[in-house]
C-alpha cells in the first residue's frame, strides 16, 4: 500500500470547489431564515480558521460570528500571570509553560519581559518537555505553569503521572486548567447576549466526548455543531446550523465524526480524574469569577502544588484589564474587535493591552492579522 501523504489529510478539506459549493448552499438556506444567526465559535482555533481563510467573505449578511472565550491565553486573568512571574522570580526556579503564554501581559509585565530581566522561563512545545528539564536540573525547582481547556489537561496529567512514577521531587505545578461548559453558561447568563447557536470546540470533545454539550442544547434551545478546524469543516458546520435554524430545530450535531465520539477518550478522562478536582470558582479574564469552571490538584498531590508550596509569595490581588480594553465584551460576544477604540491603535500584537490581541487564537489578533481588505 502506498504511504499516506500528509497532503492527502488536508487537501480535501481546503478544496476550493467544495468550499464554494458549501457557500452556495449556505446562501440558499440562509435566504429562508426569519432572523439572523449569531453563532458563537467558542474556540479560538475556529476564530483563527474563520478569519485566516476569509470565510465571512463567502457568507450572506444574516450570518454573524461571535468570538467566544475558548482561548486559554485570552481568558487568563492578570493575577495568574503575576503569580507565574512571582514564581519565576524565586531563586533557583525554572518556570516552564506553553507557547504564547509568555507574551500575555500581567500587571508587572509579561513572562517574556521577566525572562529578559534574568528569570529562567522556558516556553516548551509539549508538557512532557518539563520532565526532561526537571531531570537535567536536579538542584532547581521546575514549575510547570499549566494552562488550557479539557484538550490539554490530560497532557498535564501524564506529566504528573510520570513525575510521580520517577519520584521526581523537583517538578511542581501551577494549575490553570479551565472548562468549556461553565464558560458557555456564563456567556448565556447575560440577558443581552445575541448568541443563538454554537460551533462546538471539537478538540475538547475528542477528550470529553460530544455529550458535554447536550445540556447546552437542552437548556438554551440552541443548535450546537461540533466542528473540525479546516475551512470545509467550518463551512459544513455553518450549513448544519443554518439548516437547523430554518427547520426550527435545536440539536447537538457532530460534524467532526472522524475524531469525536459521544463518550470521548475514556483513558484521558480517567487520568484527569486521577489527579484533578473542580475548583469552587476561577476568575476568567473579561468574564469574572465563574463557579466550578476550572480544575485544581487533588489534595493528595499537594506536595506538587506550587500554589500551596509558595502560597506566601503569590500575589492574590485581582487585577482588571486596561480601562480602554474591551476584551471582556468581546469574549462575551457583546462586541466585535473592531468596535474597540484601541484596536489596531493603542493595542496591537506588538503592544497588546488585552489578551485577545496577544494570542494567535485571540479574536483581536485574528482580526488584526487577517481582516480588513476592502
Amino acid at each position, binding site marked *: 500500500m502506498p504511504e499516506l501523504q500528509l497532503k492527502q489529510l488536508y487537501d480535501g478539506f481546503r478544496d*476550493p470547489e467544495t468550499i*464554494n459549493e458549501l457557500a452556495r448552499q449556505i446562501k440558499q438556506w440562509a435566504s429562508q431564515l426569519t432572523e439572523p444567526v449569531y453563532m458563537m465559535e467558542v474556540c479560538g482555533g475556529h476564530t483563527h480558521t474563520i478569519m485566516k*481563510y*476569509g470565510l465571512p467573505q*463567502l457568507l450572506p449578511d444574516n450570518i454573524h460570528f461571535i468570538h467566544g472565550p475558548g*482561548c*486559554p491565553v485570552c481568558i487568563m486573568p492578570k493575577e495568574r500571570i503575576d503569580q507565574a512571574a512571582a514564581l519565576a522570580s524565586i531563586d533557583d526556579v525554572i518556570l516552564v509553560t506553553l507557547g504564547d503564554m509568555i507574551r500575555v501581559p500581567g500587571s508587572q509585565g509579561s513572562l517574556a519581559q521577566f525572562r529578559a530581566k534574568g528569570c529562567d522561563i522556558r516556553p516548551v512545545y509539549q508538557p512532557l518537555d518539563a520532565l526532561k528539564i526537571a531531570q537535567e536540573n536536579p538542584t532547581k525547582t521546575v514549575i510547570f505553569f499549566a494552562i488550557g481547556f479539557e484538550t490539554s489537561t490530560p497532557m498535564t496529567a501524564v506529566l504528573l503521572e510520570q513525575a510521580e512514577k520517577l519520584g521526581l521531587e523537583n517538578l511542581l505545578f501551577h494549575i490553570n486548567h479551565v472548562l468549556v461548559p461553565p464558560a458557555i453558561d456564563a456567556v448565556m447568563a447575560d440577558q443581552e447576549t445575541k448568541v443563538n447557536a454554537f460551533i462546538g470546540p471539537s478538540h475538547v470533545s475528542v477528550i470529553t466526548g460530544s455529550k458535554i454539550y447536550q445540556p447546552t442544547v437542552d437548556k438554551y434551545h440552541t443548535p450546537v455543531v461540533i466542528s473540525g478546524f479546516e475551512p470545509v469543516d467550518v463551512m459544513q458546520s455553518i450549513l448544519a446550523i443554518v439548516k437547523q435554524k430554518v427547520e426550527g430545530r435545536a440539536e447537538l450535531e457532530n460534524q467532526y465524526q472522524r475524531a469525536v465520539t459521544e463518550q470521548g477518550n475514556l483513558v484521558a478522562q480517567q487520568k484527569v480524574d486521577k489527579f484533578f478536582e473542580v475548583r469552587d470558582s476561577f476568575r476568567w479574564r473579561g468574564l469574572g469569577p465563574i463557579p466550578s469552571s476550572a480544575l485544581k490538584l487533588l489534595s493528595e498531590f499537594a506536595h506538587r502544588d506550587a500554589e500551596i508550596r509558595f502560597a506566601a509569595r503569590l500575589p492574590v490581588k485581582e487585577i482588571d484589564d486596561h480601562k480602554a480594553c474591551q476584551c471582556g465584551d468581546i469574549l462575551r460576544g457583546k462586541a466585535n474587535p473592531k468596535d474597540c477604540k484601541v484596536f489596531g491603535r493603542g493595542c496591537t500584537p506588538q503592544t497588546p493591552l488585552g489578551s485577545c490581541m496577544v494570542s494567535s*487564537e485571540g479574536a483581536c489578533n485574528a482580526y*488584526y492579522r*487577517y481582516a480588513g481588505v476592502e
Partner: protein
Amino acid sequence: MAKPTQIQLSHGGGGREMAELIGKIFFDAFDNPILRREEDAAALNLSGQTAFTTDSFTVAPLFFQGGDIGKLAIAGTVNDLAMMGAEPQYLSCGFIIEEGFEIDKLKTIVSSMAKELEKSGAHIVCGDTKVVPKGCADGLFINTTGVGRIVRPGISVRAIQPGDAVILSRDIGRHGAAILTAREGLELESELTSDCATLWPVVQQLLAANIDIHAMRDATRGGIAAVLNEWTKAANVGIDVEEKLIPVCDEVRGVCELYGFEPWDLANEGTFVIALPKQAAEAAVEIMQRHGGCDSAAIIGTVSDEHAGKVVLHSPWGSKRYLELPQGELLPRIC
C-alpha cells in the same frame, strides 16, 4: 602532551595556540594570496560601484539537514551582495568561539565555508578570532562581511513599480522548518533539508541574459511575508499574491500544520523574490527553472497601486486577506 581537542581560552589569547589555530584551520581552508600576506588589513583592488554588507550568524543547532552555520555564514553574506546585482568578491570572517567547543566541529564548519565560497568565487581576505569563557556564547557565532562589484546598477526596492510581476525562486520555508525539526524538544523525524544555498550563480545567469530586474531580495528571517511587506512600504505600492501559486513542500506544510505556523513566515536561506516588468517575467522564470535549485520558480503575484503598504493574499476560493509581517518569537499555538 596531547593536542587539545577542544577550544581553550588560550586559543584566543594572541599567542602560539592562536597562531596555530588560525594557521592550521582558517588559513588552510581559506587560502589565498591576500590572506597569506597577514597584514593588519587586506589591501584590495576595487573598481566601480561596490556593494558592502555584513551579517552575524547565531543559529541553533549549528548543524542541520542541508547545512551548518558555516555554509549559512557564507551563503548569507554572498546572497546579500547578489541581491544588489553585485558579484561577491571579498569577505571578512569573525569567529566568536565558546571555550570548550570541539575543534573537530570547528574544522567541519570551516571546511563547509570553504566549499560554499567556491560557488561564488569570493575569497575570505581577513578575519578575527575571539574565544569567550564557557557560558558566554552558544558554541560558535560567526560574522561575515562582504564586498562585491555591482554588475547591474539600479536594482533597488525604489525601482519597484505598479504592474511589475513578482517571482519567487523556489518553494518556501525550508530553512525555518529544518531548524525547527532539528531543535531539541521537537524531535521530529524528517527528511526535510534547508534551502541554504549561494544564489550568485542563478543571479549571474539572469544578469547575463539582460533580464530587466527592478528589485531582488533573499527571503531570510521573516520569510517572504517580511520581504513583500518591506517592499510595499519602501516603494509605497501594494502587492497581490495568489496563495495557490506559492510553492510549499509537503514537509514544510506538515510542520506548519503541527505547530500553527504559516509557510510565508518561515525563514529561507536560498530563496529569493524578484520584482520586474511583467513582460520580462516569463523569460526570467524560464532561466531560473533551468538552473539548479530553482525548478519550482513561479510568478506569484503583481505589484499594484492599490492597498499601498499592504500585501494582499488571495485564497484559492476567492477570499482575500492581508499578509502581515510575522510577529515576535515563533511560538506554537496552544491547542
